[in-house]
């Protein structure tokens, strides 16, 4: 293995930290750095720069993925409806030439778009379209002979309606708030459950979402839903836990604000006071630190550990 210089290390630094150097070069660089404090510092600085770049990544807005999926579905439905209407026109073209199919009166040719490629009889489609909101029917074509083509876009979506306090509906919301694949849906579910936290199952689900959800937006929404339980000691301990562990400033701000909704000394136990004192040492944000100090003052505790 040849002896390498500091200049060579500097040139290879970015590829090294990205793990893109060939193995031999990587070994040479590490061998040089092992005995060179200046190069060790260069590597450490490069890693700090990577950490800063990681922190600067923009999180996706909570609802964006869901909106994109919805818009794509609409476009695909429109495309499918367009294709179906082309088939409809072809069918009517052939029908016009076959005497057995000649219409005796005005006939309506109905094209139902995006029906999952499943065949529906005209009668079924008519029944379905009779129930459809009038605004969703479209006149695709009309001929002087009295033939019309009406389209109605349908999807495979199933919709249920009910009150949030209905057990079955709430069950769906509880399942989705922690299990839905995209953050937008989980956030919406947390918002829908906001007024239901008096139920223990809802409180539990919101606590799990507030502490474990990978999206900070969802964690903030779940925390907001716990406002009505902010006076209970178990919930308050969870707030302190989030305050200490969550890397997102919005979540920490929300947690400390909820903690301060109830400001009597008896609402803070030794564990919470210890957590708040720890935050006084570690927290860098002045607002959160000031709120922690306020909480400690209310709890008749010192802001510092002596």
């Amino acid at each position, binding site marked *: 293995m040849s002896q390498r210089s500091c200049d060579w290390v500097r040139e290879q630094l970015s590829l090294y930290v990205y793990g893109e150097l060939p193995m031999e070069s990587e070994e040479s660089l590490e061998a040089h750095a092992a005995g060179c404090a200046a190069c060790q510092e260069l590597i450490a600085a490069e890693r*700090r720069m990577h950490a800063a770049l990681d922190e600067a990544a923009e999180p996706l807005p909570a609802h964006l993925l869901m909106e994109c999926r919805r818009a794509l579905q609409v476009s695909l439905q429109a495309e499918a409806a367009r294709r179906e209407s082309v088939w409809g026109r072809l069918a009517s073209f052939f029908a016009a030439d076959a005497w057995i199919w000649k219409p005796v009166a005005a006939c309506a040719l109905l094209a139902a778009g995006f029906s999952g490629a499943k065949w529906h009889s005209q009668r079924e489609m008519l029944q379905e379209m009779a129930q459809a909101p009038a605004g969703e029917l479209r006149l695709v074509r009309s001929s002087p002979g009295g033939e019309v083509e009406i389209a109605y876009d349908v999807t495979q979506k199933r919709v249920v309606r009910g009150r949030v306090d209905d057990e079955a509906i709430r069950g769906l919301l509880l399942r989705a708030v922690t299990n839905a694949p995209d953050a937008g849906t989980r956030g919406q579910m947390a918002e829908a459950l906001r007024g239901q936290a008096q139920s223990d199952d809802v409180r539990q689900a919101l606590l799990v979402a507030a502490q474990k959800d990978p999206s900070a937006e969802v964690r903030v929404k779940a925390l907001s839903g716990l406002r009505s339980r902010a006076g209970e000691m178990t919930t308050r301990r969870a707030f302190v836990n989030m305050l200490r562990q969550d890397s997102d400033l919005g979540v920490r701000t929300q947690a400390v604000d909820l903690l301060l909704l109830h400001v009597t000394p008896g609402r803070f136990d030794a564990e919470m006071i210890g957590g708040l004192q720890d935050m006084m040492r570690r927290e860098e944000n002045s607002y959160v630190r000031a709120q922690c100090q306020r909480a400690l003052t209310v709890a008749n505790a010192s802001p510092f550990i002596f």
Partner: protein
Amino acid sequence: MANSLDEATLIRAAQGGDQDAFEQLVRQYDQSVLKLAYNLLRSAEDAQDIYQEAFLRVHKNLHQFRFDCSFHTWLYRIVTNLCLDLLRKRKVRKEEATVVQTSDGEKDRAAMMPEVRGDGDPQRALVSGALRGRIRQVLESLTPRERMVFELRHYEGLRLRAIGEKLGTSEEAAKNCLFRVTQKMRVALGDFV
């Protein structure tokens, strides 16, 4: 359509007109496509346009996909080309909403960022508004191709060889791009790190 179907089966089913299969295929990749577009363009509206256009093109041209490369590579070629076109054409909108909801009402996220303190933990001090601002400035000063290579390597974690394949260029060219970007970042962020 069962969830356990492998990708090739899904693609063949989608090529045969199975909409459920197409939807499953979209859902396997759409989050990373959107994340890439959003990070590159820093605009929800533009990212949504890219998402929509990319998957409509996939839907339209899926019958032409011949398994000559991975579906991921094929899809990313479409997405990166769309993003590069947009980066070249448009001036990327700069500011997104920075307001967070707290129990005291709305607060500006930037105003709530931790202040840079010389005596603090340097790792945490890095995450400052000033630092983010500098990173953003450097990103905006990059050429579209540099920006794309950096995004794919740093945030998507793709190897330089894979980036070359997706961008229709060589590994060496991707390496040079990455090298230039890290140089610029180092100069701009030197005070902080």
